[in-house]
């Protein structure tokens, strides 16, 4: 099945095993779940060690026939971009399962919760690694169902509403994406005579300008909802606030990245011309989202909502970085995705811990906890500062690279005759940069209202510091935030080649599409001889 097949399917097997253990044996469920997640992490470390940083293309590929009559292949592969996102997933799942607060205060049905988290992990890893659009779509939808149950069963007061809203929003995008995938498939057949959903082959298909626009719209809508890009973000505060801690950590830590990853992997390279034409709009929406999310976070009293809106703001940076379409900006975007996974995951774990202790998320109910929970306060401080983007912690690297990329966007693209598509980079970068200040205001403000001030609420006197497994959870998150802040180079080195190759190929395909905007679907650049033979019969 190959290393990547194992990384993808191990959690699913673990989930099946857990579901076979009788309902009452909660400690076995927890133990088996954690064990599966750790084994998956170890296997993903093998993937990391087997990854050759010097190569730009996909590595460790698994390519087996799946549904032969339709030319559908179980094709997985990893490159420098998906490598780290998979690592983030396999890292966050065991940490979340280790956390006693993951399941939330409705501490019921541990078996189903653990199984749902592991099925979710399979869906996420599979979607990051998929190189066949059908496989990608199946894994993409596979994520939806466990998350729906996680919000709906273990969530808060308004969990039905939040769960349904989450599903409907996601489906709106993904079903239109499915239509676009089918359209690509039909056009690929028209252009070559072969049937294939393979990414490597479909990314050679060059569509006329109008068709690109429709397809890009369908893909970008699916991903924009997932990110979420303003104004499609309204599901996010609901889902995050109602989801149990574990759900919020994974939702913010990993699932939101599918939006940005999808833009980078699919929407841009498959439809280069439409992407370039839509770039100004998306860039402006991203900047609006950055500022809007930050301002919304600033006025929240609910700590979880605050963190949720901060995600809107931080993910806006990622989108902006991707749209700069220069290696620096995209490297920054990739790094920011990872850093956001760590810092926001940590913030949700912290808020979840407080909710577990106090059954409240209102900042006004807290104050002066520093004296009672010194270890927790120290851990949370590191995570908050990482999220703010303090140099030396993980959040700084990504934001910094994105801003550099934004300021230099024009300089790189001007000589290629593509000046118009990223308007006023200095202005956009400048506006985006203000949110760094606002984020310091709301995050430090949150920290201050939680930890400092007088310990004047009687309920807060009994709050217990982190202990046992919680110490491990926060210890691991803090370590990750510091290591990623101090030593970003090992990560950036491994993604560098893939990002550069992405930019070069995008630029090449964009110029070709600009030269021939009205040519019917055709293949550019020519398919390599070996790949052209693949594909099935009708």
């Amino acid at each position, binding site marked *: 099945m190959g290393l990547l097949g194992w990384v993808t399917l191990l959690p699913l097997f673990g989930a099946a095993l857990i579901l076979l253990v009788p309902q009452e044996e909660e400690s076995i469920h927890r133990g088996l779940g954690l064990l599966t997640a750790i084994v998956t992490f170890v296997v993903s470390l093998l993937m990391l060690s087997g990854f050759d940083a010097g190569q730009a293309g996909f590595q460790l590929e698994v390519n087996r026939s799946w*549904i032969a009559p339709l030319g559908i292949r179980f094709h997985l592969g990893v490159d420098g971009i998906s490598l780290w996102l998979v690592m983030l997933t396999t890292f966050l799942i065991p940490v979340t399962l280790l956390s006693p607060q993951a399941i939330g205060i409705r501490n019921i049905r541990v078996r*189903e919760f653990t199984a749902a988290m592991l099925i979710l992990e399979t869906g996420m890893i599979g979607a990051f690694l998929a190189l066949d659009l059908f496989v990608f*779509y199946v894994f993409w939808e596979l994520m939806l169902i466990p998350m729906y149950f996680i919000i709906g069963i273990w969530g808060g007061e308004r969990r039905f509403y939040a769960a349904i809203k989450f599903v409907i929003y996601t489906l709106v995008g993904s079903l239109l994406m*499915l239509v676009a995938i089918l*359209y690509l498939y039909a056009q690929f057949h028209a252009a070559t005579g072969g049937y294939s959903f393979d990414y490597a082959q479909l990314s050679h298909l060059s569509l006329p300008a109008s068709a690109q626009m429709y397809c890009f719209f369908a893909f970008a809508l699916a991903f924009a909802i997932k990110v979420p890009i303003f104004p499609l973000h309204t599901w996010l505060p609901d889902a995050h606030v109602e989801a149990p801690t574990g759900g919020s950590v994974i939702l913010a830590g990993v699932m939101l990245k599918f939006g940005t990853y999808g833009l980078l992997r699919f929407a841009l390279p498959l439809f280069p011309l439409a992407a370039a034409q839509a770039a100004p709009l998306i860039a402006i929406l991203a900047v609006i989202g950055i500022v809007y999310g930050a301002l919304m976070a600033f006025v929240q009293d609910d700590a979880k909502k605050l963190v949720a809106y901060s995600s809107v703001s931080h993910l806006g940076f990622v989108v902006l970085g991707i749209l700069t379409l220069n290696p620096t900006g995209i490297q920054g975007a990739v790094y920011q995705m990872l850093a956001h996974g760590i810092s926001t995951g940590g913030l949700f774990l912290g808020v979840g811990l407080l909710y577990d202790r106090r059954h409240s998320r209102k900042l006004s109910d807290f104050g002066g906890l520093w004296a009672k929970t010194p270890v927790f306060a120290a851990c949370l401080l590191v995570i908050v500062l990482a999220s703010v983007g303090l140099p030396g912690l993980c959040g700084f690297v990504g934001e910094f690279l994105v801003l550099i990329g934004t300021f230099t966007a024009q300089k790189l693209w001007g000589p290629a005759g593509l000046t118009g598509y990223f308007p006023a980079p200095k202005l956009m970068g400048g506006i985006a940069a203000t949110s760094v200040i606002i984020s310091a205001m709301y995050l430090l403000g949150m920290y201050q209202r939680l930890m400092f001030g007088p310990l004047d609420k009687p309920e807060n006197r009994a709050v217990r510091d982190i202990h046992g497994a919680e110490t491990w959870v926060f210890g691991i998150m803090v370590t990750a935030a510091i290591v990623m802040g101090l030593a970003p180079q090992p990560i950036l080195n491994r993604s560098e080649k893939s990002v550069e190759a992405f930019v070069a190929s995008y630029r090449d395909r964009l110029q070709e599409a600009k030269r021939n905007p009205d040519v019917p679907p055709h293949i550019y650049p020519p398919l390599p001889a070996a790949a052209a033979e693949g594909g099935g019969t009708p």
Partner: protein
Amino acid sequence: MSFDATQLFAYAPMLILIGMGCLILLAETFAQGASRAGLAWLGIAGCVGALIAIVAGWAGAAEPTTHFQGMLVVDRMALFLDGTFVAAALLTLLFAPPYLREQGFEFGEFYAMVLFATAGMVMVIHATHLVSLLIGIETMSLAAYVLTGCWRRSLRSAEGAIKYFLMGAFATGFLVYGMAMVYGTTGGELSYAGIASKVPQATKSPLFYLGEYFILVALGFKVAAVPFHMWAPDAYEGAPTPVTGFMAAGVKAAAFGAIVRLLGSAFASPLLVFDFTGWASVLAVLAAATMTLGNLAAIRQDNVKRLLAYSSISHAGYLLIGVVASGLGVASAKPAVLFYLASYTFTTLGAFGVVAWIGNRSDERLYVDDWAGVGTARPAVALAMTLFLLSLGGVPPTGGFFGKFYLFRAAMESPQLHWLVVVAVVNSMVSVYYYLRVVVSMYFRDSTRALAPTEGATMRLGLLLTAIAVVLLGIFPGTVVEWAGSIALK
């Protein structure tokens, strides 16, 4: 032209079903009390025998052969759907006995009627002549009316049966009237091939178009396509639940098979397909209307049976897309329709099987709110129902997803149908909302009253089989796609 007895071997599945049905009727007169349960096993044995006959005939059916002066044909498409019908009958016979016993109307005739209806469906799909089509439809429908009304204690069952019967009789009237007009305008042709050869002359008369559309109206009634769907929710709600599943899956599949065959041969001429009055554009509009109305009505239902009834109307809409695509010359559209029918059959039977399971004599638990807490009390059944609902909604990894995927893929090959695919996709989205309402109730709400479902080993077996089939069709659809695809190679 003499009657050749060897031709009968080609129709072994149908003959086995009819023979076993007669045997059950005979045995019923001798059966007392508990031994009536054995009658269901006779029926199951008949279905297994028919399945074996279908498998045995599969290899020889690569080339279509017609029999009885062009009345009937044996080909891969017919055998594929035969397998679907017989599987539907088999599952119905697994679900029904515990249900009938619980509700207190366990009669041997029930099982016989299921087999007769199945034999009628087999006839419908083998028919290549309007008369044999009529015979098949009537055999199927009469048995279905009886099955709908056989729950004599229940007023709703009687009401459903009457409505179904009256509307069905009306539809038969359309069919026969349409046949007469086609007969008259083609100069005495009723076989599909004969009609096709006379189309150029026949189209000089507007009566021919009228006849064509009358026949389509009759079949539209049977598949419950808008605007001929009014009977469906009442009949589905009133019928004993295992029968509802059988009707929603089998009868619909048979009628779709007939539509595909009729439009693919008798009315396949470009003169009839294209243009404003051609059936492709008419059916495309009906497809959009059917799925949209079915889904919008389903959103408002609180009764799970009615909800599934409206959802089955919307599925007729999706299937019509495949019919239109095949009319527009997409080669993979027919296999896609067949695959969709197969996966839809298993999903629907499974879903209605759970509906039959959940209630008991005094408490049918048909409302969405009654399903609260099933997820905690009976996780395995709740999981199965979730699978069926996700499959109906078209969410991977289920047969329903792959069926939709395959169907939409076929439709996307025809540029005229892109709009219809978008409409269908938007509809799928809407449908997920109401399917998930049931899931919400099962998992997210706490039980209001104790669950006392209708237990039975055969019912559990039936649910297990359908659930496995739905997952397998979703994850490894390749084999079935190849079977369905082999009809296009002739």
